[in-house]
């Protein structure tokens, strides 16, 4: 069979698949061990944590759709060698094709039917006037935008909202009847339990948040085709599409950075704490040295040098996407280099403490090899530290991307990212009336993702940090009952 496309898996795609495999492996392990499941059950009880998790899953779903890349087969009449387009597309690009292809001339405001700038328009009679020209796509179905637009938006919004609500109602019913079967109760009993928030897992938060996500999603899906809901940018591209594409960049920086630095931090931190002596001295020297260099400057230096390297060897990458993807991966690597020292120091301290414990002394006395002690006895006991620092780092990294892109050492300028959106919109601040929608879209998307990540991180930390449990007695917790936002 002749395939009409060729998979073109980018480097970061591969690493994302590796990350998914690692997560799947961990989930499988956790499900089989009761003592590993216990802290996750505490996460599942947290209303705020589960609500944040639903929003994170929505972001991750968009990011994953955007992580399967391919190239179309070029039509050359079936003769000669098969050639593929140089444009690399993802599943998200295909799903959002109407957004991608409906390019206007230049800026237009959200939901506008006319361009942002006045132009000379030729009337049918041959006369010329200066007016705001109609958009090619946004609101093109309206005869008289000024009068019809409000009603049109309202009726479309109502339609897609009710569709979204119907979808959610079906999903919620399925979910609750599944719960009812699991608990061995009737449907109404299960519904009552969930509604009163009496379930072990915070199902009420999950269902309410997913209602919100589905409603917002259906609203956006219903309105983004006839209108540009976040307006268009300087070259007339849909800002909403840009913001969606930027999700993957943000997620990649937030997760892959940790993935690439984790092996170093784990190995060096544990070995330093366990071996002590000169090994400890050397590792401490390495991380103190790296830590003493201001992070932004080290990143800037490395990125500048890499840029020079790419510029002097322009033939290394065959597509623009591959080049910007390599730059993204490099940014993750160098962010990892500047970020691993903190985790390494924590792990060293913990390993130092653990290696004094009786069970490890006993293992040593029995002649268990160092490698086995580290992997069987120390590694599982520092896992909570790794997890907490991974989820805590995520939001900081997403925010760092925007700042680095502003400084000029972030992701490739051709890559969609919130930082690049802010950077290009910043120059238009002086315009009158102000072009605000690009900034608004980038900041809004970033804010929702980072807020969800922060809340989820708090829930995970509360569940995993043994200190937190000891510090707050059950009585204090019962008095607080504030929903997981406390330390």
């Amino acid at each position, binding site marked *: 069979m002749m395939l009409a496309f060729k998979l073109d898996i980018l480097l970061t795609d591969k690493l994302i698949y590796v990350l998914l495999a690692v997560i799947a492996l961990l989930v499988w392990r956790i499900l089989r061990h009761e003592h590993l499941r216990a802290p996750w059950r505490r996460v599942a009880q947290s209303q705020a944590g589960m609500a944040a998790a639903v929003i994170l899953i929505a972001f991750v779903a968009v990011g994953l759709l955007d992580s399967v890349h391919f190239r179309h087969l070029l039509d050359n009449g079936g003769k000669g060698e098969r050639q593929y387009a140089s444009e690399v597309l993802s599943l998200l690009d295909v799903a959002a094709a109407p957004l991608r292809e409906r390019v206007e001339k230049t800026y237009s405001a959200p939901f506008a039917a006319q361009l942002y700038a006045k132009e000379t328009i030729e009337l049918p009679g041959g006369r010329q006037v200066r007016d705001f020209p109609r958009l090619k796509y946004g609101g093109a179905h309206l005869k008289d935008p000024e009068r019809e637009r409000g009603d049109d938006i309202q009726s479309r919004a109502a339609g897609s909202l009710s569709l979204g609500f119907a979808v959610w109602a079906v999903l919620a019913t399925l979910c609750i009847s599944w719960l009812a079967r699991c608990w061995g109760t009737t449907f109404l009993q299960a519904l009552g339990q969930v509604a009163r928030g009496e379930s072990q897992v915070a199902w009420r938060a999950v269902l309410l948040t997913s209602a919100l996500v589905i409603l917002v999603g259906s609203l956006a899906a219903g309105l983004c085709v006839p209108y540009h809901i976040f307006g268009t940018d300087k070259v007339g591209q849909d800002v909403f599409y840009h913001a969606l594409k930027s999700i993957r960049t943000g997620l990649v920086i937030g997760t892959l950075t940790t993935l690439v630095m984790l092996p170093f931090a784990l190995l060096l931190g544990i070995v330093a704490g366990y071996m002590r002596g000169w090994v400890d001295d050397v590792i401490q020297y390495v991380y103190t040295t790296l830590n003493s260099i201001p992070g932004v400057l080290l990143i800037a230096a490395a990125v500048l040098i890499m840029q020079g*390297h790419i510029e002097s060897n322009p033939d290394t990458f065959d597509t623009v996407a591959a080049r910007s993807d390599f730059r993204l991966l490099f940014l993750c690597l160098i962010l990892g280099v500047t970020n691993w020292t903190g985790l390494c120091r924590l792990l060293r301290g913990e390993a130092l403490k653990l290696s004094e414990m009786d069970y490890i002394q006993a293992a040593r006395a029995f002649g268990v090899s160092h490698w086995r002690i580290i992997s069987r006895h120390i590694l599982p006991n520092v896992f909570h530290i790794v997890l907490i620092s991974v989820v805590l780092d995520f939001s900081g990294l997403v925010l760092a991307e925007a700042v680095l892109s502003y400084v000029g050492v972030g992701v490739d300028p051709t890559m969609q990212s919130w930082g690049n959106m802010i950077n290009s919109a910043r120059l238009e601040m002086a315009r009158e009336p102000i072009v605000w929608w690009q900034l608004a879209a980038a900041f809004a998307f970033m804010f929702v993702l980072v807020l969800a990540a922060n809340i989820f991180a708090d829930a995970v930390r509360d569940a995993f940090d043994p200190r937190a449990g000891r510090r707050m007695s059950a009585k204090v917790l019962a008095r607080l009952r504030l929903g997981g*936002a406390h330390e």
Partner: protein
Amino acid sequence: MINYIIRRLLYAIPILLGVNILTFTLFFVVNTPDNMARIHLGMKRVTPDAIVKWKHEHGYDKPLLINTKVEGAAKLTDTIFFDKSMSMFALRFGQSDDGRDIANEIKTRMWPSLAIALPVFVIGLLVNITFALLMVFFRATYLDFWGVVACVVMMSISGLFYIIAGQYLVSKLWHLVPISGFDYGANAFKFLVLPVAVSVLAGIGSGVRWYRTIFLEEAGKDYVRTARAKGLSEVRVLFRHVLKNGMIPILTGAVVVIPTLFMGSLVTESFFGIPGLGSYTIDAINSQDFAIVRAMVFLGSLLYIVGLILTDISYTLVDPRIRLE
């Protein structure tokens, strides 16, 4: 005490040497002087003669590590490593690509940086500690809960948003202060108010939450319970006991940044057009002036290490339990 400080200073030398070797590797081995010349002369159509000339003008035409052409100690000193990298220990940073003396630039530009960073540091610390203490005072009430929620929301907002929104509201809409720029003397005030206020605001979220955690941990300790049991008022307990003991972990975070205040903030300075070291660095990054970036990396590390030593010394001043030996 003096012994300890001398030992710490000696320990700083290998770290700075490490930083030096790392930057040398990055800037001269990975990115060869030929490459640098090509970047500055334009990538295409650059003749070998032009490269040689550029390297000679900027002093990059010596051997990297060992000069075999000369005799004696000059074998090691007449090299790029000694000339460009080791000389930074004597705070000689050489010339930037436009021919100015970097050390001189740093001396004039650090004052505007300090004029922003010092007020941000002091006001930020006071504001954060005040809010954190208030939240601990009202702990386990709705005030505390919504305070934490506000902190989480504020720390989820990008720092760039605070700057852009602040400039738009205060300067463009209300015309209270100029959007950007800088002046010396008393005139500096109107240029400094907005960047300082914005930077303090942007730091409140994470700062207050962090200090609140420290104070809560302190407030749960036995001596605090004793203080309450003997009938001290809550205000007195907070200020005399919790605040004083909480200052120890706060010092770790605060003292270490004091020397690096000279470096300024890249983003704030470039948004507000402050001619400090931060905007100097950002301009250097944009014009790919490696000499300046290298100098700033070294200076940053040096100041950070000074900060670490100051932290250790300040410990002995606030915590009599710690003696440096």
